[in-house]
């Protein structure tokens, strides 16, 4: 593992003047590049060669002659090493804190943690390997049927959705245009408000509640490495009843022959936070007795504009990992800690957006036996990069006196909202159009 981490760090740091300190496997400013110090400030503010660390060489059997008793430096004599002074009491301002090795939860074996800021290098492939899943492109048939069902539509759907988008993108600020950090959550709340209006027609939709800022914890072993999913992930829609499994038993059994894609030489633990102080915890985020115990849909936002934003493949990986984490915690609660194949697979949905592009994921957890890469796999349906609209411009884009993109909302695609609505209605509403293969 170590050499693979070195390889990647070297690749990333090519040309930046940084190198790997092979001893501690951390990047440091390379002292091989020539640094000219013409100005006072450059030398004052750290643009200097770091001083060479001279190590004290200990030869056993030989006594080091130091200038300790003379109390002044003498050229030729070694520098004395004094015993570390102990204050006798703990001064909080001078306390360096306990070392990792002294903490009660310290373990020799490393654990690789996936949190809300993790951006996996290999994206979906890595997430599938970690969660032992098989990918199916596109949404499952049941949800697609519901999306095409003309009965489960809001009145004046296109008009209202476009109004919701315009409110989020144009009207919600005193300035000319709102920033992405503002319009992304506003668009999601507007769309959810529209979806909630359908609970007049389908009363079972009111058996749901939204939860924000909840923390999930789940752990599992994959090929002798320990992994965890931890932390705040997004807005969760909880429901009183679980979602029915989407794939038939035959399809689940067929995943046994599927081989997980690896990405040698990159390690599957890349980009995960390596910790030695951890607790193996399984927690859905809610206590026993919660009236809405089944996680229905997780809404993840990607509102940042800067380098901290998620690329689509990283966002899709985050969706898969957190859906898996929520389901694993729930499965362990229901069926115990022992790894097993679940008789009734658990299903959960995730929707992620950056304010324009939507990603849809449906995760079906078939098994908690994740140590080996053989056996029944979990299923992931992924519908990626669905645009809700193409452009939302305050000023028209004009190239060579021709209007390329008009001002206002353009390129609206109603299919994306229908999929969003279908995923909201899934579990509470049956589509009136039934295809041959859809489950009843």
């Amino acid at each position, binding site marked *: 593992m170590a050499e693979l981490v070195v390889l990647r760090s070297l690749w990333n740091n090519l040309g930046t003047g940084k190198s790997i300190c092979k001893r501690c496997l951390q990047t440091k400013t390379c002292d091989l590049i020539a640094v000219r110090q013409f100005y006072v400030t450059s030398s004052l503010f750290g643009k200097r060669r770091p001083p060479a660390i001279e190590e004290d060489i200990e030869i056993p059997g030989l006594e080091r002659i130091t200038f300790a008793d003379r109390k002044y430096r003498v050229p030729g004599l070694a520098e004395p090493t004094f015993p570390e002074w102990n204050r006798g009491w703990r001064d909080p301002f001078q306390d360096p804190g306990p070392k990792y090795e002294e903490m009660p939860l310290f373990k020799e074996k490393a654990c690789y943690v996936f949190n809300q800021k993790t951006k996996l290098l290999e994206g979906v492939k890595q997430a599938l390997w970690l969660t032992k899943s098989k990918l199916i492109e596109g949404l499952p048939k049941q949800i697609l049927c519901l999306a095409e069902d003309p009965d489960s539509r809001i009145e004046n759907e296109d008009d209202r959705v476009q109004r919701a988008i315009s*409110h989020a993108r144009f*009207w919600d600020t005193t300035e000319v245009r709102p920033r992405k950090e503002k319009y992304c959550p506003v668009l999601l709340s507007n769309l959810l408000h529209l979806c909630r209006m359908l609970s*007049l027609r389908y009363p079972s939709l009111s058996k749901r*509640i939204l939860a924000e800022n909840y923390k999930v914890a789940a752990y599992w072993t994959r090929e002798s490495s320990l992994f965890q999913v931890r932390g705040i992930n997004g807005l969760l829609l909880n429901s009183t009843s679980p979602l029915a499994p989407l794939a038939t038993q035959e399809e689940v059994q067929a995943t046994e022959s599927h081989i997980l894609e690896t990405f040698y030489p990159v390690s599957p633990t890349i980009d995960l936070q390596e910790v030695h102080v951890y607790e193996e915890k399984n927690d859905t985020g809610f206590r026993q*007795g919660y009236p809405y115990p089944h996680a229905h849909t997780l809404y993840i936002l990607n509102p940042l504009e800067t380098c901290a934003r998620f690329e689509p493949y990283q966002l899709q990986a985050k969706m898969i990992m957190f859906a898996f984490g929520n389901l694993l915690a729930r499965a362990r609660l229901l069926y115990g800690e022992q790894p097993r194949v679940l008789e009734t697979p658990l299903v959960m949905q995730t929707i992620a957006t950056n304010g324009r592009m939507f990603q849809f994921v449906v995760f079906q957890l078939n098994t908690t036996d994740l140590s080996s890469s053989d056996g029944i796999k979990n299923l992931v349906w992924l519908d990626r990069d669905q645009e809700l609209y193409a452009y939302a411009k305050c000023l028209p884009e004009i190239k060579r006196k021709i209007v390329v993109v008009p001002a206002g909302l353009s390129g609206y695609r109603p299919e994306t909202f229908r999929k969003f609505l279908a995923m909201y209605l899934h579990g509470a509403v049956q589509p009136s159009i039934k295809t041959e293969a859809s489950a009843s």
Partner: protein
Amino acid sequence: SGYGTSVGKISKMAAFCVRCVGNSKLSNYMQLKRVRIIHTEVLAQNPTALSPLYPPIVPSLTARSKAAKQRRRDEYYKKVYAAPSVQEKLRLLTCLQRLKYVVNTQTSAINADRWYQHFTKTAYLSGLPEHFTNSGMDQVAETGDIVTSKALSDPDFEELKSLFCTALLQENFYMRKRTPFLYRTIEHYFSPFLNNAVSALTTLLAAQNPLLKESSLDFKPQVNFYWMRGERVVPRGHRKGSVDPIRFQIDDHPHSQIRVPKQLPEFVPLDYKVPAEVPVIKLEPDRLPLFKRQYDNHIFIGTKVTDPCVYGHTQFHLISDRMHRGRLTKANLEDQIEVRLRANAISSLFAWTGAQAMYQGFWSHEDVTRPFVSQCVITDGKYYSFFCYQLNTLALCVETDCNNPRKNICWGTESMQLYDTVEENDVKGFNDDTLKLLVQFLLYRPKAL
């Protein structure tokens, strides 16, 4: 003047005697303009037949005189009256930045509600309007043009109650949370609860109130209003002695609000004689204390003018921890609890209704022709206060307020508890009346619906 001396009566129109018409100075002008040599009798029969010879004599635009200042002001008002769109009107009214008092909706000033009533010309009536007090829980009646509706049916009410309890328990018990940050306790435990509560109310009551189906629900919106009230004489500096209007700005951030496409009906007629008086405070606003700043003047209801939902329905406010009643009780300010809630309601609702009126093109010199009505609920999770506001006048500046008998009206209740305590996974002492009043608030709508 030397003209027209031989004519019996000089009229303002161009009536020239025969002798003057021959005058060479007039001849060019007469070729260009429609000038007739007429007899005074004809003029007396038809005095308006003639257009003026000369343009009207008006004060200078640029002189340093009171007349010139008045003329500049009049030209400015003419521009505003003639503005082609509401956006242009708002831009003209808010483009000039000057020092203004920033009115905080959640303020720690003592007795701020009387001051805010003075700034906004609001009369406060305790209790709610007749619409809410007359409509009994089981009555169906039509009073004038307000329809009092039957309350929610029992199963629906029970469902709403259980949703409320579950949302409360989710935040206070079921969800595992870390300890809240300093002064963020209410926001930590009750902000998500209020999100869920407002969503549930809007959804469940949309069946009875079709206005809610077309409504727009904003979370953490921004509401701004800028107005002028009163005058002051500049005490020192190069402008010493000149008279300036006193400007105010409210920048409010409610927890959530419901905006609707149709206006809510009035609670009382526009010319209603309010039984309460607007308190008049002779001290300057600095004494409250209020502080002046200069920045962009905003008039904003939560969305721009192009949005179809430009009328307000209900706002929900979550008070900050600094205004929590426990802290005020400890500081011997128990009487200030209700005062601060009232101040919050008056300032927030005045800003919201005023901005709604300005979005319809009304301003201080074009006063509202119909009242603008909105409601708000101020809560800390456990205690709820209900307020209704009717904006009858925007004419608050000195020129327009001198003969203005109209007042804005704010109705309000004392704080009502929703529940007693939350113990483990149980909500104890749930008060149905508070929830019923909340339901009534959200069911308010125009008669046509």
